[in-house]
């Protein structure tokens, strides 16, 4: 995409690229590019390498370790990391809890938690969704009753990604009654996963993998000092996070790498004695996807420019999320189709015998990626946001 970047930006990109080439461990990159599951230590190892370089939290203020990069530089950095096959940054600490603490945290909370998040001392997870509250998050019911200098938590969270690996969870809880404005009475708490009364139950997804959990809270005591922002103002915190300026919503770097994997994989498959990549029907599908990627890259840059110059329409993130996830899903689908009849057999998630052949992972991956249009605000909810915020349609 050279034509879109200025010479300075290109120089920055080369700097990042060179550093990644020298510092991204080959075994981690292979795990990512061969679709093997990453464990806690894999994520943390990469995070610590970035932290040592000072690049783990580019968007944070420099006093807390931010890089001071421009939005464009952050975008380039994220695109390069995804493209190189670096493990994804687990967002809960660095991209969610960190920014919340920077904006709303007490001095003590910042002092204690921010360096730990930065260094990867704690692994965080996000406790928002409940069985009865998904898209309609403000209806959440998990109760936090104040008793002296503690809250006592009772209730359940669901779909909690990596709760089984986490040391801490940030939760939205109900500290007051659901009044006329349902958003009132919600508070934002930081909870130690080792607290007595917390039970984590795995929820296996349809690809057979374990990434999400149910988390049950039974009389869990949380110090009031772990509340972020005022009591009853948790919704403000949550909304800040949703609207928080993110540059990697579209996941372009990763998708560009996946696109190249698709092309290389299709060239290795045969149809009528020739590479599948010569088949006109398949070629057209791949070409359409490439055009989608191209369109989204430019859209992404246009939106970044709009945000930088303060001309945001409030719906950019939603548009990028919708198109970005559609592309991710199409990639997994075409890859699965490219495998032909062999796509049926699945290698188990930790089968290392078939480590170099990705075929056994393709169908599972197709299944797993259905999640992308559901989580982080489903694509239906994103469309509702566009309809309301950008188009002003009545709700």
């Amino acid at each position: 995409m050279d034509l879109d970047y200025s010479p300075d930006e290109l120089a920055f990109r080369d700097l990042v690229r060179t550093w990644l080439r020298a510092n991204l461990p080959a075994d981690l990159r292979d795990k990512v590019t061969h679709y093997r599951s990453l464990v806690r230590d894999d994520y943390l190892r990469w995070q610590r390498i970035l932290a040592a370089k000072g690049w783990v939290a580019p968007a944070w203020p420099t006093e807390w370790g931010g890089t001071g990069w421009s939005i464009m530089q952050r975008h380039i950095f994220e695109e390069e990391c995804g493209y190189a096959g670096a493990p994804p940054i687990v967002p809960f600490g660095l991209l969610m809890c960190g920014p919340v603490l920077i904006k709303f945290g007490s001095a003590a909370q910042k002092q204690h938690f921010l360096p730990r998040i930065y260094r990867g001392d704690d692994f965080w997870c996000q406790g928002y969704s409940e069985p009865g509250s998904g898209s309609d998050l403000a209806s959440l019911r998990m109760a936090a009753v104040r008793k002296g200098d503690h809250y006592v938590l009772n209730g359940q969270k669901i779909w909690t990604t990596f709760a089984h690996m986490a040391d801490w969870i940030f939760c939205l809880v109900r500290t007051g009654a659901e009044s006329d404005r349902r958003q009132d009475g919600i508070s934002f708490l930081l909870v130690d996963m080792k607290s007595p009364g917390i039970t984590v139950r795995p929820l296996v997804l349809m690809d057979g993998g374990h990434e999400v959990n149910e988390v049950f809270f039974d009389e869990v005591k949380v110090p009031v000092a772990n509340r972020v922002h005022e009591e009853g103002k948790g919704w403000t915190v949550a909304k800040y996070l949703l609207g928080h300026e993110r540059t990697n919503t579209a996941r372009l770097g990763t998708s560009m790498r996946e696109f190249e994997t698709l092309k290389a994989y299709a060239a290795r498959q045969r149809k009528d004695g020739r590479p599948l990549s010569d088949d006109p029907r398949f070629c057209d599908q791949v070409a359409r996807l490439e055009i989608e990627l191209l369109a989204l890259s430019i859209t992404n840059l246009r939106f970044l420019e709009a945000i930088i110059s303060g001309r945001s329409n409030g719906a950019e993130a939603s548009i990028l999320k919708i198109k970005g996830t559609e592309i991710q899903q199409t990639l997994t689908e075409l890859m699965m189709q490219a495998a032909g009849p062999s796509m049926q057999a699945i290698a188990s998630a930790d089968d290392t015998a078939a480590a170099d052949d990705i075929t056994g992972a393709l169908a599972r991956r197709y299944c797993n990626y259905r999640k992308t249009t559901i989580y982080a605000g489903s694509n239906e909810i994103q469309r509702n946001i566009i309809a309301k915020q950008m188009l002003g349609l009545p709700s």
Partner: protein
Amino acid sequence: MKFACDEEQSLLADSVRRLLAHDYGFEARREIVTSTTGYSASVWKAFADLGLLGLGIVLEHGGFGGGALACAPVLEAFGEALVVEPYLATVTAAQLVARGGTTAQRETILPRVVEGTLRLAFAQTEPGARYDLAEVSTLARASGGGYVIDGQKCAIVHGSCADLLVVSARTSGQVRDPTGISLFLIDPRANGVTMRSSRTLDGLRIADLSLAGVQVAAEALVGSAGSALPLIESVVDYATALLCAEAVGAIASANAATLDYLKTRRQFGAPIGSFQALQHRMVDMVISHEQVKSMAWLACTSVDSERDEVKRKRMVSAAKVKVAEAARHVSQESVQLHGGMGMSDELKISHTFRRLTMIAQLCGDANHHLERFTHSKR
């Protein structure tokens, strides 16, 4: 009435549904899927007792006659319940014997299939062949009055459950020549046969087969040498038609579950089915289902009664294109409209998703059939 089941078919379909409702609940199925063999012997026996294994096989060999149309309601019920038993594999291979086999082969094999004591599988696909039925390079050399067979087969659905394999191999010609392909009966326990079984995404078993100097007698040849391709094509079309019927059931089940979810799941103080954005999505899924019913009927009728081979191929391919697209559409939408619950292994909907995903690819994906539809000409 042309499109509805006759009374006999409805009764049979009802008995199958009763059996499945009783013996094939979500938990029972899960146990079968994770068992060593991957199917249930008692369910298999129940299928035989109901006469399901005799559909498509003539009276003279113990069967109950009929064709794909007679079989379709059974497959539809299987699609609803996500049956993993090697039914399609067995009846497909049985058709190869019924249509192409010698009298002796038919007399020894078919009655045992009907009574449920012989399971079959068809070893056709080869690595790199994708869905091209003529791409056979496994070699059968005449030797000592019989044949010696060498080659690799892959993606054999239910290969590891089979007591007997029907294997395609070349007795003459080059890879992708339409002539020179023959079928052989091979005992999976014979010397030189190695099978590697894996699980499929949708809870079935699939095998890769390696044949190294496998010796078979002359009697193992199904029909005559070198002319099996038209037979293979017609039987794979038959299997494709049955797969379309199974899709009808799986889509019905996905739609019923999704409709129910839209009515019961509440967000923002209302059932999510009250949001018009979702109503229209549900409606499109129902339209897909109707189209698939039509196309499954077309495929079954065509394989049963279309004498013009080119026309049959075009109609079956047309059906499979629609079915693949509808399977994709409905499976994706049903998961999406279930939200997070759609992703969970603990709900049936994600299992129906997986089966529909496979149905879309099996017996040729949409691209393959689009190409065959376009290029099948006299």
